[in-house]
């Protein structure tokens, strides 16, 4: 019981810690950052 509870609590703490400590991505400010040409309903790759 305790090992399961510790595992789940630890996993939650670890991932939430990663979220809090990952710096936010900068806003894309160049053409190159925004030039993804994604195609709607593209045929299967």
């Amino acid at each position, binding site marked *: *019981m305790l090992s*399961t*509870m510790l595992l*789940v*609590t630890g*996993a*939650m703490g670890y*991932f*939430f810690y*990663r*979220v*809090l400590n*990952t710096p*936010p*991505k900068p806003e*894309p400010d160049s053409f190159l*950052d925004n030039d*993804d040409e*994604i195609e*709607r*309903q*593209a*045929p*299967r*790759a």
Partner: protein
Amino acid sequence: MSANKESWGSRVGLILAMAGNAVGLGNFLRFPVQAVQNGGGAFIIPYLICFLVMGIPLLWIEWSMGRFGGKFGHHSTPFIVDTMHKNRLWKYIGVFGIWTNIAVASYYCYLESWTLSYVFHSLGGTFSGLDQIGVSNFFDEYVSLGESTFGIPYEPIFFFVICLLLNTWILSQGLAKGVERVAKIGMPLLIVFGMFLAYKGFTITAGENGAINDSSVGLNFLWTPNFDELWSPTVWLAAAGQIFFTLSVGMGTIHCYASYVRSKDDIALNAMSAGWMNEFVEVVLGASILIPISIGYLGIDGVVDLVNKQGGLGLGFRTLPYLFYQWGDVLGAVAGVMWFGLLFFAGITSSLAMGTPWIGFLQDEFNWRRRPAAWSFGLIVLVLGMPTVLFFKYGVFDEYDYWAGTVSLVVFALFESILFAWVFGMNKGWREITSGADIKVPGIYKFIIKFVTPLLLLWVFIGSLITPKGGDWAGALSNGWELDDSSIINKIKNSNLKRQLAEATDPAVIEQLQDTLFFVNASRILLVVVFLSIAALVYIAYKKRVREGRI
């Protein structure tokens, strides 16, 4: 152009909203009962395995589908899935992602209103001085629209409407100012209340305040593994089913929330963080309250009997308010407020999520503004929810729950996993999952998402469709396949009700069963009509897009 220009205010807010969407009443009322009924501690093994090979993959699939659809300005599943393949029929599969939410919200908001009402009854001391039967009778009186101790006429309807107004108003405030703000308040409070009650659940001592067992008796009962059960398909089916309900996958809410994530932002870590937060609330808090406290005061036999007769819902509403008062009047009232308060926060953060796909659909496709779209959701839920309030005793509530809250989730998840891995293509799908990821996604998940998850979902669906009598799979294979009344096929045929009707001799019972049969069939027709109506709206929206050259 779509009137929908919303976005999340912060990353933590998004994760708390996603976790709030997943954390529901089932974390506290369903999970511990499922564990007790399916091998105790041994249940946690298939449960965690299903979380790893079905829950996490589905979270990543839904988050990435949502963010992908959001790049094209879609915020509801019909047109999110439509972006992924040219076949026009996919958008009608996506109808499940709106229909499920409207249908589930219709009964879920009623359930949520019970928790709100019980918070006020705990504050007002309604349960003080009542014995266990008195508290149980209060519940029966309540759901039968009987006399109210507050003197409010039709009290359940009053609280249902209040609850709906609250949901609708919050939804009308928008994503960041409404949904996210509630999640930022509700989730921390839920965890604090849960930790207090879990502490009480862990510290019951036999002989104190009328307790007959130490906490350890209840915790051992819940957690002692019965390894014989580990090989039972029924247990695995129950574990997979619990993962569905607890993570809110197969509903369309995750797609909708994720569609507001910026295209370059992470989804892999966000999904893990929200998913594990839900697991913490379920496995750590959910397992430490209902069963340990109940067994501490009522003993194992008493609780098993109550669980079999009333399920987790009955135990939570009929029994716990009485048990809290064993701690004295003040602490009993405080514990009642905390218990029903945490259930209310668990409920409202989920029901708010159910409103967003419909609102997103109206904003994207028909240029509705947020406010009228939110009020239209409230009105639809009021109309569809009233039968669950008025005809609760005829099984309307259970019927909504079974078809919209159970079967529909599996069907939609099965379709979306096939669409993502096999139609959209695993290579493109993998790129979507890992794009902008703040963690390294293990490569093994490419294989799991492509093969294991769809096969497991197919097995869950087939297992639910043709569940053998008594869950005896080995016996069914060797002695002929007799369907259980819980199987989807026998549910459609109303086998259980018809058998009860054939065996009944008391005219009053016969009349009750005949009425129940009528309301069960009427509920199904109503749900089908709602589904077809949404499908018709999707068709109109599609034609509109074609006319406007937007597709």
